[in-house]
């Protein structure tokens, strides 16, 4: 039996980022991963570090997280491919362009640098885009990176400070003060943090996390096709519906010269197979924005499962009915971005520190207390 200050269950980007922060704070940490570090949803994600302003809580966490990533950037190995390319939110019509001004105000109020591009400026910035787009919102400090290596970098840093990395070790059971591995080994700890992404409910029944499947496609290396991460503003309309599958145009330049293309959303779908009809919808949509798309060489298509919560915000903090269990899961489509902020928020709570942002909007208590469940059912 081994004893630690903290056992983190799940070595995705969230668990790995937390191991990095806690080990830097001097805690003895075990990071226990069923397969390989960063090989779950983290390996399937797009790696867009993006400030999102759907609501105040989301903007607070994402913008803070993006700035934490920027502070880390110089210390990341080159292979993590951090690239501060910025985001262009594309407006296809006047209605979307009208939304741009509101968003600019939102972002600036949160200290996020944002500017408006008119149609001509957009065309100049991204000549590969279809003519006729009305304009764009440019969020300057957004970035992209390669998520699995970012997770591995965090894990190796923690290991260098003495944390124990346990890969190929599925956890079978969580108990007050200990976790039981599938091989029967027991690890004891003062704090137990569940960071198992979509698999979290399997270890803690009742968590409001469900899979939301997404598709991505990557091209062969070549000349860069686009220069910013491109996202359609229509994404706001299509991506956040709660029922049915949706697609949105989402294109990312990789430093390798590859183009990474997304994305789709299928709520409740936990399968891994490529859904050809949905892929077709995604490609059709993307080709409307990038007329040359069909001529690019595709190398691979894959899928991943986002760990979605009902309100799109993660669960960060103690489980209200199991105070010995801490949650760091449910990051939906933003977990690469918010891994840095999430790790800080959870660490600050464990250590009784105040955080840079208010942690309450992400408290698991919003779903997991008797009264919150009644509200949800009503």
């Amino acid at each position: 039996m081994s004893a630690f200050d903290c056992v983190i269950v799940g070595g995705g980007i969230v668990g790995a980022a937390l191991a990095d922060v806690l080990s830097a704070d001097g805690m003895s940490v075990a990071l226990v991963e069923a397969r390989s570090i960063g090989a779950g949803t983290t390996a399937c994600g797009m790696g867009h570090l993006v400030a999102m302003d759907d609501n105040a809580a989301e903007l607070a966490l994402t913008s803070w997280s993006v700035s934490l990533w920027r502070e880390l950037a110089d210390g990341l190995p080159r292979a993590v491919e951090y690239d501060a390319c910025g985001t262009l939110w594309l407006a296809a019509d006047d209605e979307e362009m009208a939304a741009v001004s509101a968003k600019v105000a939102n972002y600036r109020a949160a200290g996020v640098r944002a500017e408006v591009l008119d149609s001509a400026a957009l065309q100049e910035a991204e000549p590969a885009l279809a003519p006729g787009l009305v304009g764009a919102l440019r969020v300057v400090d957004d970035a992209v990176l390669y998520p699995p290596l970012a997770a591995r970098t965090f894990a190796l840093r923690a290991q260098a400070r003495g944390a124990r990395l346990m890969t190929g070790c599925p956890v079978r059971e969580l108990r007050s003060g200990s976790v039981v591995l599938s091989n029967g080994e027991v690890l004891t700890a003062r704090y137990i943090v569940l960071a198992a992404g979509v698999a979290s409910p399997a270890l803690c029944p009742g968590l409001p996390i469900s899979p939301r499947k997404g598709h991505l496609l990557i091209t062969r290396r070549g000349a860069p096709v686009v220069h910013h991460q491109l996202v359609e503003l229509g994404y706001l309309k299509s991506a956040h519906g709660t029922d049915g599958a949706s697609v949105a145009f989402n294109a990312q330049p990789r430093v390798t010269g590859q183009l990474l293309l997304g994305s789709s959303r299928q709520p409740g779908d936990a399968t891994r197979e490529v859904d050809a009809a949905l892929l077709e919808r995604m490609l059709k949509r993307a080709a409307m924005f990038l007329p040359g798309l069909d001529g690019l060489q595709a190398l691979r298509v894959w899928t991943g499962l986002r760990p979605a919560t009902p309100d799109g915000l993660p669960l960060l903090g103690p489980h209200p009915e199991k105070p010995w269990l801490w949650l760091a899961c449910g990051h939906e489509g933003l977990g690469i971005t918010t891994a840095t902020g999430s790790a800080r928020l959870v660490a600050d709570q464990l250590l009784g520190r105040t955080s840079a942002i208010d942690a309450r909007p992400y408290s698991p208590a919003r779903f997991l207390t008797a009264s919150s469940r009644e509200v949800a059912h009503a």
Partner: protein
Amino acid sequence: MREACDLVVVGAGPGGLAAACRAAEAGLDVLVLDAQPEPGGQVWRSEARKGANRLARRWLTRFAASGARFRPGARVVAAPEPGVLLVEEGSSSFAVRYGRAVLATGARERFLPFPGWTLPGVLGVSGLQVLVKDGLPIRGKRVVLAGTGPLLLAAAATIHAHGGEVLYIAEQASAASHWGFALQLWRHPAKLLQGALMSAALISVPTSTDAWVIAAEGEGRVESVRLSVRGREEQLRCDYLGAAYGLVPNLEVARLLGCETSAGAVVVNERLETRVPKVHAVGELLGIGGVDQALVTGELAGLVAAEQPIPVELERTWHRVRAFAAQLARHDAPRAELRRLATPDTLLCRCEDVPMSALEGCQNLREARLYARLGMGACQGRTCGTAAQTLFGWSGEDVRPPCLPARIGSLRLPSDVSSTHARES
């Protein structure tokens, strides 16, 4: 654009041709697809023009008369739903709706890394043979061949016949295994291989078992090779080195369709049916067995697809060639020393420039892929994935579409295919 057929055959090597002939002769509407510009596959490449090989001529003539349709230069890139394949053909693409499928995608060479293996002038064994058949000027050039099995000798015979000077043939198998196997060959109907053995003997090239390449050296291209020959080291100056260790089946299309594989081959029953309904696999996909296995399994699958009775003689032949394939697999299995030739800076993945040292700490193929970009490049891991399996015992990963790099346009669904499934947004 769209095509429909009773039977689609993927691959026009001996396996695919035999299946297509049998099924088309029995009245099925058969469509044969092959990425190459001519029928014949690896072994009968360009025989359609040359007609030097009698067996090839017979099958190619029969194929031409069978009524089967052939689309050359047609690469199967995706399988969006059961009964549909997406095919890229030059700068266009089309979908094929099929009732049944015979997969006959053949094999590729197994490359194992050694220092200098990526130098220009270093090729595969059969790869070099193919280039020579296709016109690579080899007259007067000094060639060293290193590998295993009958294909090594077949390559030597071709290079010799085209005026190349084969300096040395290094066979990795041990003497006992090799000569035991060679004696067995006479019991099998592998005429071509016997011929190759004989011609190698006739051209009297120095040949050794227990021999392999340690390194290829040269400025900008290969100038010399160092060999390990029965425990001694030998250096030879040369213009070309052909080095590869046997063949491995091209499983990508089969795995994309969801066919079960085991020990590197597609699992089939006595009727050559895979675990996916209405999909058959033949030829090298069943485990490396050469032309005879390809022909007999192709014929069987074609007959089954067309619901024809199976002649007893055909089944007997199959059992014989299966025994041969099993012996070949034992003979060609790379020896342990071959796994230790690469140094830390030897590239394992040449598409993404991944040296052996980059794999430090990686426990499996997925980690090597995620952390070191092994197999993330244009060959989709065909070369380095196979090498990593041999070197480290790592098992392969799932195949994701496209199974060959393809234009995004070739992955688009024609409207009548997508309409059955698509929901409108």
